[in-house]
């Protein structure tokens, strides 16, 4: 709904000025010694009323226009394709580290290395620019989750949050359990309008206690959330999730987390990324999958009515000038 508001409502206190033309009749009188014998000037009287009315109207219009009338932003419901994505980005110090790659066999000079955080930001920025009609929430996490912004379509602001995650170094430790619960919480009390996903970007695993596991499982299922885990590989010795199950010797935190996610009973997919291309691929895959009908609201900018009022005032004052000219003519 759009409501009418004023930029400077206190200016409306000047509205009584519009009464001036109605009370200043005396000044226009022309003295005649005796008027009783004159025929009643009906048309002249009507013209005077019109004149007063137009003058009052012009003053009123001007005052209202100066007060800056505008409708507030209104929302139009639209149905498009997309998803509500709660982005959960690891902001711990390890993400500031560079991605390590195996030394190339032909001993090429090593190209400029990207930080893991830099990779993640590039890929997520790409997603924002490709799908501005998606709703995103952004939460950074280290040992505590930090909600940067609740679900919004203001991609410019989301971008500012992503940019910020590349400034300085993050805190050392991580607590992924709290972070996941915070990302899930972003969906609580929101009407279900389309597909929902948590997009977790991290370079590490986590040990989750039993209570946290239950809460995460319950929250994910209750809110019907799919989970995407972009695992930014730390180096050559990181586990290969494709082999999980065949190679029982791997027992790292990452694998444990992966297995927990797999058994949540929700849609889950893991991506292992270590460069811009693989990161981009992962995000593009997520984008193509989270493409169901989504009800969203398009914001219509508030309308500024002052121009219309100024034009109306111009017309009424032109009419005033015309009447003034006519009256002078008849008085000659």
């Amino acid at each position, binding site marked *: 709904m759009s409501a009418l508001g004023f930029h400077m409502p206190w200016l409306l206190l*000047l509205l009584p*000025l519009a009464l*001036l*033309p109605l*009370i*200043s009749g*005396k*000044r226009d*009188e022309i*003295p005649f010694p005796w008027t009783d014998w004159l025929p009643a000037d009906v048309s002249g009287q009507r013209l005077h009323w019109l004149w007063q009315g137009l*003058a009052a109207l*012009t*003053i009123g219009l*001007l*005052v209202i*226009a*100066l007060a800056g009338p505008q409708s507030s932003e209104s929302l139009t419901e639209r149905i498009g394709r997309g998803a509500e994505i709660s982005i959960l980005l690891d*902001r711990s110090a390890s993400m500031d580290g560079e991605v390590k790659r195996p030394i190339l066999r032909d001993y090429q000079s090593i190209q400029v290395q990207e930080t893991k955080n830099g990779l993640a930001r590039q890929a997520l920025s790409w997603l924002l620019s490709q799908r501005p009609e998606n709703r995103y929430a952004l939460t*950074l996490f*280290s*040992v*505590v989750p*930090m*909600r*940067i*912004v*609740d679900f*919004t379509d*203001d991609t*410019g*602001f*989301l971008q*500012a*949050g992503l*940019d*910020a*995650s590349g*400034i*300085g*170094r*993050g*805190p050392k*430790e991580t607590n992924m359990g709290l972070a996941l619960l915070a990302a899930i919480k972003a969906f609580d009390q929101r009407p279900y309008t389309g597909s929902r996903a948590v997009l977790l970007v991290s370079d590490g695993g986590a040990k989750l206690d039993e209570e946290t596991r239950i809460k995460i499982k319950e929250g994910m299922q209750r809110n019907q959330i799919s989970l995407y885990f972009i695992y930014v590989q730390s180096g050559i010795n990181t586990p290969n999730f494709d082999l999980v199950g065949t190679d029982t010797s791997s027992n790292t935190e990452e694998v444990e987390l992966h297995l927990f996610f797999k058994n949540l009973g929700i849609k889950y997919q893991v991506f292992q990324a270590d460069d811009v291309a693989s990161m981009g691929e992962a995000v593009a895959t997520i984008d193509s999958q989270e493409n169901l009908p989504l009800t969203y609201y398009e914001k219509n900018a508030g309308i500024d009515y*002052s*121009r219309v009022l*100024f*034009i109306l*005032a*111009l017309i009424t*004052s*032109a009419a*005033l*000038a015309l009447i*003034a000219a006519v*009256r*002078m003519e008849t*008085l000659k």
Partner: protein
Amino acid sequence: MLNKNIWILLSLIALLVCVFLKPIVMARPVYDFQITFDISQSMKVEDHVAGDQLISRLAASKAAALDLLQHLPCGSRVGWSVFTRRRVVTLTSPVEVCDHYAGLASSLSNISSRMRWANASGVGKGLHQSIRAADGMGETTRIVFFTDGQEAPPLRSGDRGMPKTDRYPVSGVIVGVGGLNPVRIPKTVDENGQITSYWQASEVVQKPDAPAGQSNEELSSRQDVHLSKLGRLAELIYLPMDSANQLADAAMVSSLAHQKRVPVDLRWIPACLALLFLCLRFLPGRARE
């Protein structure tokens, strides 16, 4: 008759100008602020007087930041950061305040002491980091740094606790929040935000070089002396804040502004003239005798 109706004609001309006047691009003062909140535990102390109630130092800081956000002219930019222990984490880099007002306001409301990733607070180090971060955000970026100035663990007397900032030509405002009477610092809170315990004298690091019994680091008050010293060293304005609306006055000054060419709507000038002319025409005069 003619001399009176000349006002009508003038008013008509002014309105013609008003209707056809396009916004004019002019250089206007705007402000870019990266605003940092100290979210360490002492900021939870409720000793800021707002109206007839006491609110926490962090809540007072957020209220002042919101007031500033509402007063900044369009074209200005604002970003948020938080600070605790010895580290500043930037939450959002500066964005334009009118286009992104809703996002900025919602993001500000999410800032809380629950974001605290560690205890302790090295105010000087945090200030230094926020200056360094602002320096990397472009030369128009100034800082606003909300803190009570409580260093935990305490500094040795004479220590500034802040690395040199000479290399970074960043200006801005340090905003001191909190009361002047030392009060207990909350240690734990329950799920509803109710304080369940306070720091005791034996649990905190006391001043290393103070005589026994002379150091009360378990109590906290606004450290005006320390903060104004940091302000002098880093060439920042120090504002001891007693009410939320002080910040906008202190921060929106020409020394912290920069000029930006923005389209300015000047239709109000001819419109006011038209209104004035009409009022003059219809001003009640003395009735003729």
